[in-house]
């Protein structure tokens, strides 16, 4: 059936008008409070904006300062370390939890409900309780480890620069597992039972069933969750700052913490935002390569 050329064009114009009308309220709010601040913020990263003084564009001076003085290297190293260890830990633990919750263990419903708890605890409370647990002389962790004869003296999880970063990682991982495990579980439950039955008939054991049926289904959701986790962990404020404020020394100094310190301790907003810009670039770079690699593997 041939349509007259006028009709589809009119329809499209009508549709575009409709979508603009629908988007208008959001567009206004987003432009003022999201888009503009983001652009302006990114621009400030190229100025010498300090408290009380007008911002003057100074090109890449902030970045040459950041790259030449010692703290960027430390901050980047810590940030990368936290990201790497956290992502691996979150992925593996969430995978284990979701596999277990997808199997025939007793009280499955109970475990599923309980899984939410770390997600429901607000960041401030999260840091507060873990601070108590990590406490040197009356914290639960040292008490348990001593009782199990795993250590012979109390470890300063937060005060010792060897361990502080692992304390931060523990907290981050703890908070991220619910979302990741629940995402995996949702994906696993979408797999039809017949696939497993067919595999069973072909003589597959449990591991093969997992590797060839379950795991490939997780590819897509893994892409989404890992990307989100990467962005969330890089920009996370509470877990990194509230526990150790970057200390002891600079053992847990991450880009986020350094950025915050520059802004609110030294009043150097230009520099602080420059750190923020670096964070965005790091995120963007990771996402670009990560998604590219995954898309290639798909072929």
């Amino acid at each position, binding site marked *: 059936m041939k349509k007259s050329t006028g009709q589809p064009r009119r329809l499209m114009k009508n*549709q575009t008008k*409709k*979508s603009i009308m*629908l988007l208008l309220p*959001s567009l206004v*709010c987003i432009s003022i*409070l*999201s888009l*503009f*601040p*983001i652009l302006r*913020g990114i621009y*400030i*990263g190229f100025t010498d904006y300090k408290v009380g003084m007008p911002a003057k564009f100074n090109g890449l001076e902030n970045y040459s300062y950041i790259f030449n003085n010692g703290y960027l290297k430390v901050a980047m190293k810590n940030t990368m370390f936290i990201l790497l260890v956290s992502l691996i830990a979150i992925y593996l*633990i969430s995978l284990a*939890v979701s596999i*277990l919750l997808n199997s*025939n*263990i*007793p009280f499955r419903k109970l475990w599923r*409900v*309980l899984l*939410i*708890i*770390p997600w*429901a*605890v*607000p*960041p*401030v*409370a999260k*840091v*507060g*309780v*873990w*601070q*108590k*647990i990590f406490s040197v*002389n009356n914290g639960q962790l040292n008490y348990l480890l001593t009782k199990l004869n795993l250590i012979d003296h109390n470890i300063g999880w937060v005060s010792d620069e060897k361990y502080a970063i692992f304390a931060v990682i523990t907290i981050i991982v703890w908070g991220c*597992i*619910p*979302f990741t495990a629940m*995402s995996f579980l949702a*994906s696993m439950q979408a797999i039809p039972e017949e696939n497993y039955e067919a595999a069973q008939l072909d003589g597959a054991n449990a591991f093969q069933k997992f590797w060839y049926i379950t795991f490939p289904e997780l590819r*897509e*959701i893994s892409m*989404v969750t890992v990307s989100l986790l990467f*962005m969330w962990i890089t*920009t996370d*404020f*509470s877990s990194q700052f509230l526990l150790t404020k970057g200390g002891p020394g600079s053992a847990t100094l991450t880009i986020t913490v350094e*950025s*915050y310190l520059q*802004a609110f301790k030294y009043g150097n907003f230009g520099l602080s*935002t420059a*750190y*923020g810009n670096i964070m*965005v670039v790091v*995120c*963007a770079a990771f996402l670009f390569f990560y998604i590219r690699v995954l898309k290639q593997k798909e072929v």
Partner: protein
Amino acid sequence: MQAKVKRKGKKLLFSILGLLLLLVLYFYLIGPFLVILTNAFKTTSEINSAVPTFLPKNPVLSNFKELAGDQVFMQDIKNSFKISLITMVIAILLAIPTAYSMARFRNKLTSGMVVWVLLSQMIPGIITVVPVYNILKNFALTNTHAGLIICYAVWSLPFSCWMMRGFIGGVPKELEEAAQIDGCNTWQVIQKILIPVILPGILTAGVFAFINAWNELFFALCLMKTPALQTLPIKLQSYIGMGGFARDGMVAAGSLVSTIPGLIVFICFQKFLVTGLTSGSVK
């Protein structure tokens, strides 16, 4: 016969091992919450005793009484509640038409919105906090609830839109087309057909916005300077920051109080949350 027994035995072994592993992992996941729960009912001196106890020796309600007596704390809870509630309403009102547009229309504008939803996740708060502060200052909205509410609403938009878009995408177009044939315009279609069907998705996106506003610390800390206007996370954080251990009982009780909305919401909306988040992303 022997092979069957062997297989059953192996299955049992794996079940037991699996359960053990689960218990260990859940000890990690739930343990800290139990610490909050039990500490809330202990006196500060018991919390800080040399040997940590699990269950309180003599459960007390003194921590909660102290919190209730702290005027600023009670005011901050009310503030948080009010701010989170209004944020939720505004976020829903803004997100519905936006998500509808994103789900049903394909043009440069909606694609741009999708890109913005993803990119906005990458921007750390530190980049936007100063420009946002200056913008709010121009409207005399710094240190006001209204200013914070607008910030939170816009900040929750990406996720709310994303979730709702996923749910809307699940509604067959035929439903809307049938309504349009009956003479409804787009707004009526949304109101009469879509919203009732998507209601769980709307509520889920809404409570997500509520919880994000309830838990948020950074922007609240930067924008709210008057103690009477501040929110619960700020007050809780000040308890933790206060030197010494004098307030640990209140920290635990306060933490428990601040966790309760999140718990209720997440448990009730658990099913929809994950479907919303994952269906929105997996096209």
